[in-house]
Structure formats: structure tokens, C-alpha cells
């Protein structure tokens, strides 16, 4: 689960925050987390269907 936390943090930091990083953008981070988890499920299903 550490791997998942790291990848979500990096992706959502990159999508939600930009230089000079003055504000935390918590709403965007929450939505990004929800989108990432949904994406993880879509990819997981597609990959498992493919390799079976």
C-alpha cells in the first residue's frame, strides 16, 4: 500500500499544485484521490481480463 500512497501523492501533487506552491488545494487533492482509485479499478479489471 506504500507504493500506492507514493504514486497517488506524486500524481495528485503534479495535477493539483503548481509552482510557487502557495496554496494546499485540498479539494482538488480529494477529487484526484477519488479519480485515481477509480482509475486503478478500471486498469486492474482491464489488465486481469487481458491476461486471463
Amino acid at each position: 500500500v506504500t507504493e500506492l500512497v507514493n504514486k497517488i501523492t506524486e500524481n495528485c501533487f503534479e495535477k493539483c499544485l503548481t509552482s510557487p506552491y502557495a496554496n494546499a488545494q485540498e479539494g482538488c487533492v480529494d477529487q484526484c484521490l477519488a479519480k485515481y482509485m477509480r482509475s486503478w479499478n478500471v486498469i486492474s479489471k482491464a489488465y486481469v481480463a487481458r491476461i486471463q
Partner: protein
Amino acid sequence: NSKQKVQMSVHQFTNMCFKQCVPAINNGDLSTHEEQCLNNCVNRFLDTNIRIVKGLQSLQ
């Protein structure tokens, strides 16, 4: 083991395809277009992988 390998691949593909298929965060849902793109992304990546492996084999 094999279950862990699958999980690592899913992490790698989600990381890569999320960057490309979800350009902006405006809500927590996936649009139909984004979901289709994620599906295509993983399938095209696997197609590419297979084609590269076959191509390298034919070079040997």
C-alpha cells in the same frame, strides 16, 4: 509471487495511463471518455509490449 507481480503492473499502468488520460481534475468521477482512454491505454501498452518482444525475437 504472481499476485504481487500483477499488482505491481497495475500500479505501473495506472501511474502511466492516469497521467495521459486524466488531464484535469474537476470532480471525483471518471468521464466515459476518461474510462475508455484508460482501457485503451493498458490494452495498447500490452499490444506494444508483445510486438516489441516478437520483433526482438525475429532479430535473433
